[in-house]
């Protein structure tokens, strides 16, 4: 491993920019993501910053059960994120549709069908600690040595 890669790994592990997108949830998970920003959980101490701009994001948090309004837009948001990137789904909705996936509803879960997902956080809603752990675990697997693995 060259010195440049080592520096990149060091910097990337302390500087993760997060964008979150709500593709049709009940807002419970959004509130848990916001709770991560609060002093009690404080994700900024791990170097995770919430920007909500896909152009400068590394991690996309996807929340919600994928309503038809997001049919092409979610892939568009995903394409805008520069590599290396990872998408994490928050809550039950992106995995299974949870309570919304019933007969006659228009949601189209799982989100896995539409964009590649690196990690899923089950729960309705998941706890802020679980969201935090998911982001930190993705950081170590996806972002370290990225240039060496994708020359």
């Amino acid at each position, binding site marked *: 491993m060259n010195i440049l890669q080592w520096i990149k790994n060091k910097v990337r592990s302390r500087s993760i920019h997060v964008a979150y997108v709500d593709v049709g949830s009940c807002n419970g998970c959004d509130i848990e993501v916001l709770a991560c920003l609060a002093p009690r959980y404080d994700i900024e101490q791990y170097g995770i910053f919430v920007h909500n701009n896909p152009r400068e994001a590394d991690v996309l948090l996807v929340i919600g059960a994928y309503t038809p309004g997001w049919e092409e837009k979610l892939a568009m948001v995903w394409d805008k994120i520069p590599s290396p990137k990872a998408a994490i789904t928050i809550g039950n909705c992106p995995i299974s549709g949870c309570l919304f996936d019933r007969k006659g509803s228009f949601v189209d879960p799982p989100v896995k069908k539409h964009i590649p997902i690196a990690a899923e956080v*089950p729960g309705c809603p998941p706890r802020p600690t679980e969201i935090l752990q998911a982001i930190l675990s993705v950081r170590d697997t996806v972002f370290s040595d990225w240039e060496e693995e994708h020359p």
Partner: protein
Amino acid sequence: MSSSLVWYLREFARVEWIKKFLFAKTAPLVTPTHFRGFPEPTGKTCTHALFCMMACPAPGAIEVVHAGDGWIPKIHKGHCIRCGLCVEACPNGVLKSGRIRETMEREGTSLLFSFRIAIDTELCTGCGNCCTACPVNKQADAQMGAGGHSSNDDVIMRVQEGDIVVIHEDKCTGCKTCEVSCPNGAIRIARILEGYQQPVQEGF
């Protein structure tokens, strides 16, 4: 003024202060044990009453599956919303989550299922499909043939003179097999979930 400046310079030059400034972290958060997690088995024997599945509000979150000789409830993460209703509804205490079981024991609460059989006599043709499909009937009277006639008094329901008669509503297990087998949609099973609390003793 000058002394104050010196104090500040000394304060900020301390190794401990620099360490705190650069590397301070809040203590790692541990999930308290009373938080409701995904329900876990306690090791008690499941009797396949399926009350957990009936009480569950999330579609596809809990399933009772074969495990060796017996049954075991299986929680599907990604569907389960951790409400703990399955833990409360289980008559045998097969599942545990947080301190739900302890609280139930302390406060003497319980969730009890009961079932009502409603038959629409306008729609019912008296074919007896429900009587023959019913698994409880099959246990009580193995000889019951097509048509649903039976001379046994232990069955839940039977056909008498072309009409269906419910004898033992209390024996119903709420499986709704009769609903599925009815060609006319004449029979409906209501699953009634009631919360009970034992009266608290005087002086508490």
